[in-house]
């Protein structure tokens, strides 16, 4: 389980916590939580990864809140900018932008912020300046596009997974 999921979870945590030491510590916490709570995981409610990703996001956000509190700064800092995202490459070394090349940046940003960085709907609404009620439908469109893109790239992904 560690081998299969640790890097994906570490990817989520590292996007919320920029300092490597923090991210490493939280990954430890996350695996401890998974280990201790595996009995409460229910397959009928969510896939294993969805469940683990949730734990990872929450643990990382908790830590970032704690840190910003310590720094007497109550706002979470999200340092991932659009330009950073554009140059961001996955673990495999394959630029993920070539994989999901046809996806509009606004959709990618939305998924990154909500899924990888744990933004709430309200935070998205404030930062991306879209009405709160639109976030849900925009997210639906974004994930639908992602699903289409991934379908097209199935063969590439397959290669990626066996690597």
């Amino acid at each position, binding site marked *: *389980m560690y081998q299969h999921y640790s890097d994906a979870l570490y990817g989520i945590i590292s996007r919320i916590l920029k300092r490597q030491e923090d991210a490493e510590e939280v990954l430890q916490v996350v695996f401890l939580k998974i280990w201790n709570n595996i009995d409460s995981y229910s397959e009928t*409610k969510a896939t294993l990864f969805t469940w683990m990703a949730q734990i990872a996001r929450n643990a990382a956000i908790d830590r970032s809140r704690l840190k910003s509190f310590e720094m007497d700064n109550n706002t979470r800092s999200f340092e991932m900018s659009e330009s950073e995202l554009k140059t961001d490459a996955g673990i495999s070394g394959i630029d993920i932008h070539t994989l999901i090349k046809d996806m509009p940046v606004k959709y990618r940003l939305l998924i990154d912020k909500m899924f990888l960085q744990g933004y709430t709907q309200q935070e998205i609404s404030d930062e991306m300046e879209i009405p709160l009620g639109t976030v849900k439908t925009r997210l639906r469109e974004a994930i639908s596009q992602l699903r289409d893109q991934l379908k097209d790239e199935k063969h590439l992904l397959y290669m*990626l997974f066996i690597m």
Partner: protein
Amino acid sequence: MDLKTYIESGILELYVLGQLSPEEEKEVQDMQAKHIEIQREIHEISLSLEKYAQLNAIKAPAQLADRIFENLPSKSSGTTSSVNNTVVTPTKTGLSWNTLTTFFALLSILGFSMYFIQKTDHNSAIQKYESDKKACDSISQQQQQLFAIINQINDPYNKIIDMTPTAGYAGISVYLHYNVVNKKNFLQLVNLPEITSDQAFQLWSLKDGADPMPLDVFVDNNKIIEVAFVDNTATYAITIEPKGGSKSPTLERLIGTMGVI
């Protein structure tokens, strides 16, 4: 809301992201248990996000694995002492600790999901019982009403009186099932005139030398209903009144009369 609209609302995406309130989450779980389409959609969304996370994965430092496994508490006693080395470099012979962990994790997932499925079955059986019981109760109540009507009609003292309609209401048909022995009256409403939503029919008891006595107010048609029985009534009459009934009859809207003496 139909399933397609529900799926397209984006609520399932928020569910997978864990951004729903506990009530909304419960609602999605109930919908998921009921509709295979929703289950499938949630699964697809989850898989695409999992792939996305894999694409965005960042290699965790190699020494981190050692530290993580060192800090995990043992779930079964006496198996942890020489665990660390086998974790990071799984041996090719025999069962590695990693394999065992995965095995037990899968086993507990299996056990838990079986428990959950059984619990769901049990709950839905209880729900089904409750709703069947309600249906049974209402059927037996209807049956009792029908029995009362049949008893009245079959009673040897039952008299059936055909209403005499007034001039404006020719063709209107009502029968009074009148029983002076058990003192019960039923109206068989065969064909009543159309009324507006702010009007109702009202039954009256007429006696010589007394004001008409207001009785039942109803809006039914094509039905048999039980109505009041008043001793010494000479004639029963039906009028159209404002909704809720009146204290004295509107004679211009007298539909007809049923003489019982």
